């Protein structure tokens, strides 16, 4: 308790961290010097990433951008292609279709995954017996190799002897073709995406731990019930982590690839042709590396726009306890 008293007074008096040395030596430009010292430390703290970005990440990113203007089949010599790859983008119907499929998938998959993961995390944050076992169980699909997960889902979706159709026929309902039905293929893959939410659950669990117990006690004293506490304590306090899961969910969901690649190859009738799957086919099956890069950078722009919108909207609903 004493810490909170000191803390609030310090927070009011000093914007930058008051270093004792600075307090002793009188100086003309005290704040600027402090700000400069903080800035130097700031660059030092992010130095590992900054160095890694310049040395390892920036080069390949720039190279992939330059490839947009090049015709290359991976084997022969690259030839300058000018703007042909960009012109091709405007006439290729499949680019638009794949972006539509990807956006559709993201629109439903991300909220579904986040909602389910938050519900499970709250359940797993409880005082139940055998917590270690339950938590591990929910995390399992995230550690099982993708191929094993897919073999299992092919069986579950199977029209003739699959688990889902067995359940449907038990209730006298018609059997469905699931992922092989043009109208159900995307919903089926969205359903499948709720399977591997182990990471999201773990992040919510860690976030729930940063909520001080005293806030719940205060809410209880004020007569707040379970829902009120969730709405007015839990949700605001974990909102930075919700933002993380939302932003990352959108970034990863727009790059959905593996399940469609291994299960449907984009079919039926291109209904699961997602953008990364299409650019993979273009770059590594049709050997048009430059055009594949062009599609990738279109996707990059789409994801960037969605992320920046999220970032701006966050000002209205994310509550930061410790923002400077």
């Amino acid at each position, binding site marked *: 308790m004493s810490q*909170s008293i000191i*803390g609030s007074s310090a927070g009011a008096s000093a914007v930058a961290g*008051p270093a004792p040395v600075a307090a002793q030596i009188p100086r003309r430009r005290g704040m600027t010097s402090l*700000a400069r010292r*903080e*800035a130097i*430390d*700031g660059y030092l*703290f992010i130095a*590992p*990433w*900054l160095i890694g*970005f310049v040395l*390892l*990440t920036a080069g390949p*990113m720039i*190279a992939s951008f330059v490839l947009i203007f090049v015709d290359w089949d991976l084997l022969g010599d690259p030839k300058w292609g000018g703007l042909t790859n960009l012109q091709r983008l405007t006439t290729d119907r499949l680019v638009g279709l794949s972006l539509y499929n990807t956006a559709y998938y993201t629109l439903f998959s991300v909220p579904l995954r986040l909602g389910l993961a938050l519900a*499970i995390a709250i*359940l797993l*944050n*409880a*005082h*139940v017996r055998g917590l270690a076992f339950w*938590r*591990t*169980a*929910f*995390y*399992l699909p995230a*550690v099982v*190799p993708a191929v094993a997960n897919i073999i*299992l889902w092919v069986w579950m979706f199977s029209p003739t*002897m699959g688990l889902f159709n067995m359940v449907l026929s038990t209730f006298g309902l018609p059997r469905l073709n699931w992922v092989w039905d043009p109208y159900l293929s995307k919903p089926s893959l969205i359903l499948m995406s709720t399977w591997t939410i182990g990471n999201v659950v*773990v992040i919510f669990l*860690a976030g*729930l*731990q*940063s909520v*001080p*117990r005293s806030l*719940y006690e205060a*809410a209880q004293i004020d007569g707040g019930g*379970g*829902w009120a506490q969730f709405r007015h*304590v*839990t949700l605001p306090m974990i909102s*930075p*982590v919700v933002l*993380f899961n939302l932003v990352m969910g959108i*970034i990863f969901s727009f790059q959905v690839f593996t399940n469609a690649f291994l299960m449907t190859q984009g079919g039926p009738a291109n209904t699961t042709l997602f953008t*990364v799957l299409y*650019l*993979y086919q273009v770059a590594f099956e049709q050997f048009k590396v430059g055009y594949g890069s062009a599609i990738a950078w279109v*996707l*990059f722009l789409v994801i960037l726009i969605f*992320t920046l919108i999220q970032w701006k909207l966050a000002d209205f609903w994310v509550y930061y*306890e*410790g*923002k*400077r």
Partner: protein
Amino acid sequence: MTAGQLSVGASSGRASSPGVAARKLGRAVLMYAVLVLLSLIFTLPLLWMVTTSLKEQGQVFQVPPVWIPDPWRWDNYPEAVRRAPLWLWLYNTATITVLATIGNVITASMVGFGFARLRFPGRDVLFILLLCTMMLPPVVTLVPKFIMFRTIGWNDTFYPLIVPAFLGTSAFNIFLVRQYYLTIPLDLDEAARIDGANNWQVWLRVLVPLSMPVLVAVAIFSFVQHWNEFLDALVFLHSEQMKTLSLGLRAFINPNDASWHITMAASMWLIVPMIVIFFIGQRHFIQGAAMSGITGR
């Protein structure tokens, strides 16, 4: 009973009337029922892999699926070891994973602190740039990355799989730690600064201990990611004695040989260590700001 901290069976002292007690019991039963049902669904793939690894070949693709092997074929496991250098691959995978995980945890915590707690010119632009590095599909930068590492002579070494982790290339983990640090009250930093702590001490002595749940989460994510890493291993590791488990096991899946029972047995070398790490690590999800008793308010 709170939303964030459901407490089943923990008597609050207010459960005096029999109606309230019955409702509590009912809620506990419902909760365990939901837990059992959901976790059964989520455990299915692993159960299927384990039983398949103990089946005879003929039972593997039987319809409807056989869940209890008959007879139990324990010999699938020695057979898997005879077919491939699983212990060597395990050693390689462990070397890469442990080193890369250490690098990821240190840099994520450090860079996350810089972005969350310190102000410097260009901070917000640099952070958006960090997010941008995750927006380009990895398959696109694969070829340039390969050419770059081959040029500096790192082809067929573990370096391309370890060194990037120490240079903060995991934007995901940095972003995660930054968001978590932003939930920790600034008052705690300021109190330490009053006591004369500099930025490095605030980071190591205040924020790192308070953020154990998220650092453990980062450690688990990095462990699983590097343990399973396939694309980078495929591109950079070539000789037989350099292979990792996920790379080596891919060779197990041979279209001319449908011995899935052996493949599944071999896959246990890949899966079991990750489950053990998660099982050990998850205990630490319940240590941090909420347990410290410090609220800042």
